[in-house]
């Protein structure tokens, strides 16, 4: 049975909404296949607006990996803005894919990529618009299997009722394995329907199917245990790790949008994983071990990716890009190769040290000295020990001053507020640091014309990190500290004038905290918040704190718990955490020890350079650190003298 495009109906609504181009597809790199020529069909969603979701590498990679299979079709869908949502409901137009405008409900799999929990309400909107029952329990054989992936899927319990399955970790091999299972099940005539299919997925031991697990609670509200309710599903579900990134050089054909998006560049991941061990960083903990992509594969990907896309910016992506074993050669090699072009290079996520200035100079050879960003994260040396972000104030000042004396005029400093054991003094030291940066910077640059921006956000404890047991500070405490910090920065008029202050207040962080460490009972809160109009919670203009607080007050008392119980309560060692049955490889005892070390301000080294400290990941997941150097260099490119007719 073929599936028709909803474009004719959608087309009539588009002149009435803002930025209609985001809904029409037509990107370079997009693939449209005949429905009937394929056997397994995936709809992939980034649950935020197109402008944020399109650049996401995760979705682009899975999209390409899947579409390379001849009998598989993968299309993409994004959250629609409220203006179109209202029109779609009024006119009966379902959630559609942007590639061929097919209704999401018609697909076999509906995979959603959650980089952050703030996309949960948008999941509900999409299900609702798609005509897929919100609750997994209400779905039939006519509905797709709703599958969550991405970092937030490491604790999918808050959305357990709404999804059918979740994949923890890297997706490249997982989506192919799932495809294989569906292909086989379909070939057999779909025996046992949906239930059998979910069972087959669960039996892989690396796909989590929440409905096959029961959660029991203690009288005080804590979890007693989470156990399988069928004999043949595993007690623990483990994460996936794609080893050898050179064997997976995706995206090869990056999607190039017509609409304006947050990032318009060809992004290449230069490694996955991070072993720096910053204790607040979920991404670092759950993506171990470090796996580098080699300098030559990166060079090849950049060349082909730029030729394919026509982008003139390259982003060398990772969690801490300057840590690549051949980052110096990589940057100078690329800078050399693209010296006579308008191609610019950028390194997001770098750490604070002098080496970065050399890199930055390499990257800005063409003369552009835009801002430099550093993330000391904590204001005082003490708190930086607590979070394991090893950088001294002297180092930081020295680095920043080098930047100013080399022509940079603008430096951004990132911090967090509300870290475990934090006091007012820890936060106030940020002001001292910023003052000193400006004072020393003016001297070094010989001009008053330099600026620094202090950007500070609320800390959110995340699952699978040493801070998973920590209590959060209330929004009042956070906002109070931010006010004090602002005053302290402006206490010196002359210095304060050169310092910009940007902050996120405490309220959204508290809700993010609820969603990230919540259990299945939080699902009712998400549903209520969504029913009350909650959408696009990552956007301050759409986020409503009072809506979430009301929703909590309405549904949580029924379970004998409340918002504070999930957020500002410290957990004990013995407590069963909602994600304990989900295995990121990290040994819980190691995490606890790291949490204790943190409170005694004891730092942990990086296992990339120092011996293994037994976090548990490599033995549990049968993985190993993969790093260079390879000793190879990037060769000069031969300039093109002829017009190129892209395929």
């Amino acid at each position, binding site marked *: 049975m073929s599936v028709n495009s909803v474009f004719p109906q959608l087309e009539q609504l588009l002149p009435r909404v803002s930025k209609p*181009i985001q809904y029409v597809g*037509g990107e370079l790199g997009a693939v449209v296949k005949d429905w009937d020529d394929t056997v397994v069909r995936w709809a992939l969603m980034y649950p935020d607006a197109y402008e944020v979701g399109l650049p996401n590498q995760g979705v682009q990679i899975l999209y390409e990996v899947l579409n390379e299979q001849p009998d598989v079709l993968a299309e993409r869908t994004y959250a629609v803005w409220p203006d179109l949502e209202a029109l779609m409901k009024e006119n009966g137009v379902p959630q559609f894919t942007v590639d061929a405008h097919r209704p999401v409900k018609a697909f076999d799999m509906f995979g959603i990529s959650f980089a952050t929990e703030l996309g949960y309400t948008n999941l509900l909107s999409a299900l609702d618009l798609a005509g897929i029952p919100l609750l997994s329990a209400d779905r039939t054989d006519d509905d797709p299997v709703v599958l969550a992936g991405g970092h937030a899927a490491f604790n999918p319990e808050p959305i357990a009722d709404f999804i059918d399955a979740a994949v923890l970790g890297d997706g490249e091999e997982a989506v192919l394995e799932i495809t294989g299972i569906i292909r086989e099940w379909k070939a057999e005539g779909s025996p046992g329907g949906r239930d059998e299919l979910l069972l087959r997925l669960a039996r892989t031991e690396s796909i989590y199917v929440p409905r096959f697990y029961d959660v029991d609670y203690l009288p005080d509200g804590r979890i007693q245990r989470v156990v399988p309710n069928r004999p043949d599903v595993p007690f623990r579900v483990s994460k996936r790790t794609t080893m050898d990134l050179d064997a997976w050089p995706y995206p090869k054909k990056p999607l190039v949008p017509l609409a*304006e998006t947050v990032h318009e560049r060809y992004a290449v991941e230069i490694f996955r994983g991070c072993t720096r061990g910053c204790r607040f960083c979920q991404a670092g903990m759950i993506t171990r071990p470090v796996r580098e992509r080699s300098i030559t594969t990166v060079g090849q990907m950049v060349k082909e990716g730029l030729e394919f896309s026509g982008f003139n910016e390259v982003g060398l992506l990772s969690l801490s890009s300057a840590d690549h074993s051949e980052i110096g050669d990589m940057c100078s090699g690329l800078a050399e190769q693209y010296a006579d072009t308008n191609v610019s290079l950028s390194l997001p996520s770098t750490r604070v040290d002098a080496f970065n200035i050399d890199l930055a100079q390499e990257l800005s050879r063409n003369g552009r000295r835009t801002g430099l960003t550093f993330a000391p994260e904590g204001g005082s040396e003490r708190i930086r020990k607590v979070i394991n972000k090893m950088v001294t104030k002297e180092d930081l000042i020295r680095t920043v001053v080098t930047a100013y004396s080399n022509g940079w005029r603008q430096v951004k400093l990132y911090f967090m507020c509300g870290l475990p054991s934090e006091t007012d003094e820890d936060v106030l030291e940020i002001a001292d640091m910023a003052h000193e940066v400006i004072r020393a910077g003016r001297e070094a640059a010989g001009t008053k014309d330099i600026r620094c921006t202090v950007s500070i956000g609320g800390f959110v404890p995340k699952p699978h990190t040493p801070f998973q047991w920590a209590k959060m500070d209330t929004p009042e405490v956070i906002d109070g500290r931010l006010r004090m910090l602002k005053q302290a920065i402006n206490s010196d008029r002359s210095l304060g004038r050169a310092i910009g202050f940007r902050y996120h207040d405490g309220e959204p962080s508290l809700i993010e905290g609820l969603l990230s460490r919540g259990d299945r009972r939080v699902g009712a809160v998400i549903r209520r918040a969504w029913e009350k109009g909650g959408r696009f919670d990552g956007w301050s203009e759409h986020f409503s704190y009072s809506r979430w607080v009301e929703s909590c007050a309405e549904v949580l008392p029924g379970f004998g718990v409340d918002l504070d119980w999930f957020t500002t309560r410290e957990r004990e060692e013995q407590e069963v955490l909602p994600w304990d049955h989900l295995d990121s490889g990290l040994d819980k005892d190691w995490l606890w020890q790291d949490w204790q070390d943190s409170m005694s301000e004891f730092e942990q080294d990086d296992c990339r350079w120092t011996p293994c400290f037994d976090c548990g990941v490599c033995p549990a997941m049968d993985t190993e650190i993969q790093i260079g150097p390879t000793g190879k260099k990037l060769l000069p490119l031969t300039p093109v003298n002829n017009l190129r*007719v892209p395929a």
Partner: protein
Amino acid sequence: MVQRLRLRYAKRGPLRFTSHRDFARAFERALRRAAVPIAYSQGFTPHPKISYASAAPTGVGSEAEYLEIGLQAPVDPEQLRVALDAALSPGLDILEAVIASEGSLADRIDASRWRLELFEVEPKAALAAVAAFNEAQEVLVERMTKQGRRSFDARAAVVRCIVTEEADLPSGAMGVPCAIIDLVVRQVTPAVRPDDVLSGLRVVAGLEPPVPPRVTRLAQGSLTAQGDIVDPLDADREGAGIGGR
């Protein structure tokens, strides 16, 4: 800069929703994809030498958009057309490329011809509305501009507004009536756009199409006394002896 080329391109189907800014970004990427030796302006942030003739509004299709590029090395116009067309998404189509002769493109464009498809509108109703519009001396319509809501005349700039013969045909797959209007409008300031004329039809005759009409620009160029439009690239084609195709 050693060569200037003029291009005609189309915005078709779903990609008619590309805004002018969207197109401009896509076009610059296409120049790089196709390795076109584009010339750059001097200065701290060099810009590729591209200049656009007035662009059709977002959501309006077009068969006749024009732009001019400056090159650092001469190329064969037809090869360039093929390469650029392949470098753009299907729906953004490069239709013609010619070597620029003397004179500016802008000087050769003072009017546009549009086709307006009014789905679910009976041709009879459209005829009556168009007649009322044509009879009026002045038709004041309102539009939101950056300066706020403003009112202006949509009638004077209209050279021709007729319901075409095709309107009698049952309109395609949908099996619903569809009125088709052939419209020629002079380019004036403030610009009178097809949706202003549609507003005008509402003002004079209460014509309110139940679904948004589909609008396509068919031609741009200079207006003859007969109300026809002269292709702005004609002059280049005549002038192009050397290096042309």
